[in-house]
């Protein structure tokens, strides 16, 4: 028994840190209706700044704590609220999730742009009254150090204060009212904007607090570590249905404790230790998503005033005059022909590689057009599915000598099968629930299959050999074989997506996106439609993954890390998730921008800056849900039409009235 408690004891501070983040998630969701994926990034940012100030700038702990946690963290929350989330208070779940994902991706990338690349170690504890290096006493023969005491004490104080705030104060009552409808509580004379802003400030303060508390416990300083923290916290918050602080706290502490107990009992050389143990938080999250009915209706819009919102604008292609449409189509064909001719004749080798990578990535991104643009669901594991395709193809070539292009088809089928399993597991989940399930799947793959050297070839990956492709032509950019292959595959995938969109399945998906209740009431089998779209998107992602791998000449698990799934969403949303050209522009735009940034001095952040740029584009989703490029195209169309067409040619779309408003 002493062993048991001895193993359990070290888990408590981990659990406490998970609990702070979990409770912060609950608070933000309760007060604002936003599931803040960026919480982990905010925690990382606070810890980064705190460590930077103490280690690089040689500040003492207290002023660094005040700047990073007391001032900066709430300020980030207030800016998020004022600039972003306030504008989408009544938008759908996808809009809110996309913006928080953009922050999750953008904030860690922004830090090196601002502070430069820093090599920081784990920081000291923030509380001078608990020395982290001093063991104060022993419990079950386990040392209780200063950082242990600091974490537990802070957690207890914060949780008690927050519970009291939400349960027993007028402010807490107003926060609970504001989540239903900011506009409605305003009609009761409540300054709902102020209430929600305060909630953002408090929850962001908690994120910062969790960040600096965790830094010395983790002993290493990486943003990925904070992602694991997020999953444990999300799992705990999910078991509390994003409502109950005590349940979220209890589950968070339990995850921490069970992890260290298993660590103590499991043999270190077993598969359970290496694969299942790190995946424990994901299993807890998946179990919550599968077995808690409350998780299926988390993101229902309960705002009685929701119908006064204007509808989203039409796509640029749908809103232009027919004559204009013809001109633009012709211009696109001319542009396309010029691009192909350029690639085959004078394009420098470097830039041919850039465009080839862009075409391959565009294929992966088309899968997001299908799932998010057409079916209205958010999948956070498309990079994982691409990785499944890539590794299957590479392994078949490596072990069986199967040509990678043929193996790519097998990989696409396997990626499709994985996507179908995910679709089946998440049949009853929508919006946030589905996003969490797919994120859990992505992280699970990262910790298991993609972490297995026999599958992925370890840290260096599986280097492709020309014989695996039957020819060395694909490795030689001057021969243009890879360009023609990438273009051909992308063209086939584009045709597939367009055919689906204009066909019956596309109409059914659009109907589902509009109203699942009415779609089912017409006889549309929602389950089947969802399986079809997941399967197709999985296959396209898998094929795209193979293309990317051929282009990079190596299959590496770092290419298909969960964070790429998030980045992919951010990319497509920036350019336009509803259109095929949005995916192509995102894919090519990402690599072209990255290449252009290499001409800038390294102090501007290098590759981080491209992610920041796209993340900034994606946060524009608040203002332009159709995508910033789509918005610009529509504006351009209108200007062009006004200049060159008589007034009767304008296609006016009366969008003043939303469904549900009288008129």
């Amino acid at each position, binding site marked *: 028994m002493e062993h048991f408690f001895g193993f359990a004891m070290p888990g408590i501070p981990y659990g406490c840190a998970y609990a702070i983040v979990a409770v912060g998630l609950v608070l933000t969701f309760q007060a604002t209706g936003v599931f803040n994926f960026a919480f982990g990034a905010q925690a990382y940012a606070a810890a980064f700044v705190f460590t930077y100030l103490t280690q690089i700038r040689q500040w003492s702990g207290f002023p660094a704590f005040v700047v990073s946690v007391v001032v900066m963290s709430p300020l980030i929350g207030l800016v998020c609220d004022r600039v972003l989330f306030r504008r989408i208070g009544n938008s759908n779940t996808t809009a809110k999730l996309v913006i928080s994902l953009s922050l999750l991706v953008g904030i860690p990338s922004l830090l090196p742009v601002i502070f430069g690349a820093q090599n920081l170690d784990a920081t000291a504890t923030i509380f001078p009254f608990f020395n982290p290096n001093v063991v104060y006493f022993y419990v079950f023969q386990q040392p209780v150090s200063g950082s242990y005491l600091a974490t537990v004490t802070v957690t207890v104080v914060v949780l008690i204060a927050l519970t009291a705030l939400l349960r027993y104060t007028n402010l807490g009552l107003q926060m609970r009212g504001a989540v239903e409808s900011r506009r409605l509580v305003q009609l009761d004379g409540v300054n709902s904007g102020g209430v929600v802003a305060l909630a953002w400030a408090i929850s962001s303060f908690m994120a910062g607090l969790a960040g600096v508390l965790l830094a010395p416990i983790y002993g290493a300083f990486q943003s990925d570590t904070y992602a694991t923290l997020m999953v444990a916290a999300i799992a705990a918050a999910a078991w509390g249905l994003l409502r109950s602080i005590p349940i979220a706290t209890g589950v968070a502490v339990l995850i921490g404790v069970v992890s260290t107990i298993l660590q103590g009992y499991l043999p270190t050389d077993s598969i359970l230790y290496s694969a299942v143990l790190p995946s424990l938080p994901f299993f807890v999250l998946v179990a919550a998503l599968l077995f808690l009915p409350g998780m299926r209706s988390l993101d229902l819009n309960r705002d009685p005033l929701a119908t006064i919102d204007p*509808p*989203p604008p*039409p796509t640029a292609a749908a809103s232009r005059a027919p004559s204009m449409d013809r001109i633009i189509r012709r211009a696109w064909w001319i542009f396309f022909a010029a691009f192909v001719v350029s690639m085959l004749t004078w394009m420098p080798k470097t830039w041919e590689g850039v465009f080839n990578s862009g075409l391959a990535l565009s294929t992966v991104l088309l899968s997001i057009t299908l799932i998010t643009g057409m079916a209205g669901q958010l999948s956070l594991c498309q990079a994982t599915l691409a990785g499944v395709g890539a590794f299957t193809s590479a392994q078949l070539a490596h072990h069986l000598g199967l040509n990678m292009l043929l193996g790519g088809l097998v990989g696409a089928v396997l990626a499709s099968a994985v996507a179908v399993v995910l679709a089946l597991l998440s049949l009853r989940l929508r919006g946030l629930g589905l996003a969490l399930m797919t994120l859990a799947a992505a992280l699970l793959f990262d910790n298991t299959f993609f972490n297995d050297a026999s599958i992925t070839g370890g840290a260096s990956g599986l280097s492709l050999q020309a014989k695996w492709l039957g020819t060395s032509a694909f490795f030689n950019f001057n021969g243009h074989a890879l360009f023609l292959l990438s273009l051909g595959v992308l063209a086939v995938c584009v045709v*597939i997506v367009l*055919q*689906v969109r*204009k*066909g*019956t*399945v*596309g*109409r*059914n998906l*659009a*109907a589902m*996106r*509009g*109203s699942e*209740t*009415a*779609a*089912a*009431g*017409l*006889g*549309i*089998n*929602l389950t089947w*439609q969802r399986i*079809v779209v997941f399967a*197709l998107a999985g296959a396209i992602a898998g094929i795209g993954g193979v293309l990317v791998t051929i282009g990079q000449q190596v299959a590496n698990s770092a290419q298909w890390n969960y964070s790429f799934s998030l980045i992919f969403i951010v990319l497509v949303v920036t350019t336009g998730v509803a259109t095929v050209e949005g995916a192509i522009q995102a894919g090519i735009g990402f690599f072209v921008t990255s290449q252009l940034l290499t001409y800038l001095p390294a102090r501007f952040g290098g590759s981080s800056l491209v992610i920041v740029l796209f993340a900034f584009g994606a946060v524009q989703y608040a203002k332009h849900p159709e995508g910033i490029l789509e918005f610009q195209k529509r504006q351009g169309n209108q200007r062009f039409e006004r200049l060159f067409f008589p007034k009767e040619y304008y296609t006016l*779309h*009366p*969008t*003043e*009235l*939303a*469904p*549900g*408003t*009288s*008129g």
Partner: protein
Amino acid sequence: MAEPALLSLRGVSKSFGGIHAVHDISFEVRAGESIGLVGPNGAGKTTLFNCVCGQLRNDEGEILFDGAPLVGVPTFKRARLGIGRTYQKVEVFTDMSVRDHLMVAERSRRGEGRLWKDLLNMSTVTKEESDNVDVTLELVGISRLAETSVNALGLGNCRLVELARALAAEPKILLADEPSSGLDIHETAEVAAVLRTVQRERGTAILLVEHDLSMVGEVVDRTVVMDLGSMLCEGTFDEVMANPEVRHAYLGQMGVS
């Protein structure tokens, strides 16, 4: 011999926690018949509709359609059997044109929707499908809105689109949930006329939930009255309106006196 019931409800009950939203409801609807389901707010009418459509599972009792029990039959299969519906809170497909709304219903009625047909370009709209859609648009009187996005329509027109979409699926029975809610007096008269035409010309049975009692009196053959989840009475419209219990349910003590 009496015509067999198209829809038969036998002792249907549904509770939410401790609240009996629907309690022991039994009545039948025959093919081509029009039944009004009336009662004050909270009577359980929409809950009963949800049980019939499969959006809610009834706790007790049995629902039969065409003589076959519907237990375990999911919503989309009930729709394919011939149960059509409009909704109290309007449910349209955002971003879609009115014509596309009806095309979704038309394709669904035909059991179309195979991916391979889309991929092989075999799912373009046929003339027959287009004609069927035009007929329904004409019937409901919204042909002029065919190419308009529902985003641009007001509540009244959205209700008409919902009605047209339900009719395009050619249901055997139409469950119309407050179709006149939010409509002006002329639009209400148009909806009543459409419902009568559909019943007369297509032989569609209608189960109508409506607060506008004059519209109910105009459209239905029989009326079922519910209050607080239970069935108060059943009969012709005039009979039930003369019933003191019904007057009490609607008007309280003032109704009885």
